[in-house]
């Protein structure tokens, strides 16, 4: 039996498919490696989730939600949270 790919959140896979208009982890790893920062797709995913976790921590603190690691991990890998962050960032064209 093949191993499941990525984390299956209640609301879909957050870490397997690429975002709309964005790149998949393998492509990110390739581009980063080309620019001198050598990494593989797992590292790219871990770095991305770490960034999401930082944003999730601040968001939880602002909303008064629990800051435990389990909660932050769940929120940061939730595609709905990621899509909310992307909407805000794209909306202001940073």
């Amino acid at each position, binding site marked *: 039996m093949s191993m499941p790919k990525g984390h299956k959140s209640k609301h879909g896979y957050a870490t397997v498919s*690429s*975002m*709309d*208009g*964005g*790149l998949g*982890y393998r*492509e*990110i790893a390739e*581009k*980063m490696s*080309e*620019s001198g*920062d050598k990494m593989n797709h797992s590292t*790219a995913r871990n*770095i*991305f989730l*770490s*960034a*999401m976790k*930082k*944003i999730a*921590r*601040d*968001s939880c*603190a*602002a909303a008064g939600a629990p800051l435990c690691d389990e909660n932050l991990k769940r929120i940061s890998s939730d595609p709905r949270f990621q899509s*909310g*962050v*992307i909407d*805000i*960032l*794209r*909306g*202001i064209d*940073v």
Partner: protein
Amino acid sequence: MKNSLDPYFKNAGRRKLLTREQEVHLSQRIEKGDESARAHMIEANLRLAISIAKKYYYSGCNMDDLIQESNIGLMKAVEKFDWRRGFKFSTYASWWIRQSVCRYISSHRNTIKIPAHASSLSYKVKKLISEYEEEFGQRPTNSEMADILGVTENMIKDSIDSIRLQHMVQYDGTVGNDDGGRHIFETIPDENITLPDDELDKKKMSNVIATSLSRLTKREEQVMRLRFGLSEIDEKDDFSFKESDIERVRRQ
């Protein structure tokens, strides 16, 4: 409050219930064309028709009409009852009565009339979807449903459309029974308007994200930009979120 059907209910109970022997005797007379025997058989079983019609009280149809339909079913049962088979009349008649009432409900419940065969297929499709979702945790595709039920995909598609029609309401109808109440269209939210609460939340979140961006490492920023498609990688580019970007998020 006095019900308009009360006199009818009272009259329906006048005739005594028939014994098995009486049923056979009346059926034999009906076969020979005795109209009074037919009337006797029908009148003695009116209570059965009423009790079945009452079970469909919450179907949304008028009770008078439901009783009328169940009586039509009863009359059909009287015509078709075969006493030689040895069953009690009520056992046989209840199927005809139920069929008559169900057919009436399915054809009158919706604003758009759906044929009985389509209504029956819709019921099967609905049941299949709920069983499939329970078993596999996802909705079956139209082709899967067509295979299981042995019909074409187009028929499945039509059935799903007819299921949607069952939930149709009059756009300018009133909410509840109150004539002075609001219309249904007044209760439909305008999804194009951003609520002040949502706007405030968005501003708050923008501020939070701006703070978070300033705390990301260069690597995290680069990966996030690529993942979200915010910038193309180029050796000359500086990927980092600039102070001006963060300030813009904060202002937003």
